[in-house]
């Protein structure tokens, strides 16, 4: 009787978790996210998979539907202290996300950036690092260069840093803190 959108169901969340894991393990390779177009979107599907009541979320660009907040269970937080931050890729970052501590680098922020496309665009980037055999090249549209510039500062003192997931339509591409980027 109760209508629950597919992204809140365990079987879909397990599928999406696998995709996120694969994306983080193979930076630069696009993975697909499962959701129903009629009542959801990829960003909410990812958050539904990753979040619970123990973590905090910030949505400075107001990308999320207000009705989804109680479903996500995460507490609201300012971008400077949130565990997860959802932003428009086209805007510029005006905050300093958590980068963890040397003893606990996992207490850092994961940034989810909504972009227009992960398959074509003016931003061409070469990726190298763990999970990439030699190098990967990606073209992205709807991503401000400021994110890449600021990311350099945020991931400079490894193991401190932030992890990024770019989202467009039903596709995601991850940029873990270990990935080295070069704009080409």
């Amino acid at each position, binding site marked *: *009787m*109760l*209508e629950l959108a597919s992204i*809140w169901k365990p079987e879909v969340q397990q599928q999406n978790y696998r995709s996120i894991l694969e994306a983080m393990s193979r930076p630069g390779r696009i993975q697909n996210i499962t959701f129903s177009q009629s009542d959801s979107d990829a960003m909410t599907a990812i958050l539904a998979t990753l979040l619970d009541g123990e973590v905090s979320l910030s949505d400075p660009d107001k990308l999320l539907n207000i*009705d989804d907040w*109680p*479903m996500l269970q995460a507490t609201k937080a300012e971008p400077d202290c949130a565990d997860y931050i959802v932003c428009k890729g086209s805007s510029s970052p005006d905050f300093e996300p958590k980068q963890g501590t040397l003893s606990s680098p996992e207490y850092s922020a994961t940034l989810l950036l909504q972009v227009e496309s992960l398959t074509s665009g003016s931003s061409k980037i070469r990726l190298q690092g763990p999970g990439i055999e030699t190098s990967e090249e990606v073209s992205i549209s709807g991503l401000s260069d400021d994110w890449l510039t600021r990311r350099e500062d945020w991931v400079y003192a490894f193991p401190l840093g932030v992890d990024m997931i770019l989202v467009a339509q039903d596709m995601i591409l991850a940029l873990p803190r270990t990935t080295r980027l070069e704009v080409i």
Partner: protein
Amino acid sequence: MTELEREEWISVLNLVPDEALRAVIDNFPADWIIKPKALPQAGLGLLKMRDSALGEPFYLGEFPLSTCWLSISTQDGKTAEGAALIMDDRIEQAEQLAICDAVLSAKLPGWESVAQLVSLGAERKQIIEKERKAILARTRVDFSLLDDAGDDDA
């Protein structure tokens, strides 16, 4: 409607036989749109307490817990919200009780059946409380007898 406060509805409805509750739920219009407001969940609740000597927190024990918060939209445009938090590991039970809560609070079609269930549950609760009081009364100790025993020892 019902003489009980809304906060008591769920506890008494939870005492109603499952078949009676199911029968009432099945009679609600199938075209209602029922959506969760928060993720329905079942799990274990932990009862945290502090010891009286050092004030250190400890967990006294755990208990099954199910929650549900939902909204109902009817075809004639009415909407209602209901919720249930019960010591039970069945999410479906929490969902059914939350639906009853919403129906009764907004007087949606069929609310009279829910009100009858509330009355039935209230009667059962009274019987259970009476039984518990009787059990408790049997455990009462008359300490005045100890005084007599003490005199004998002396």
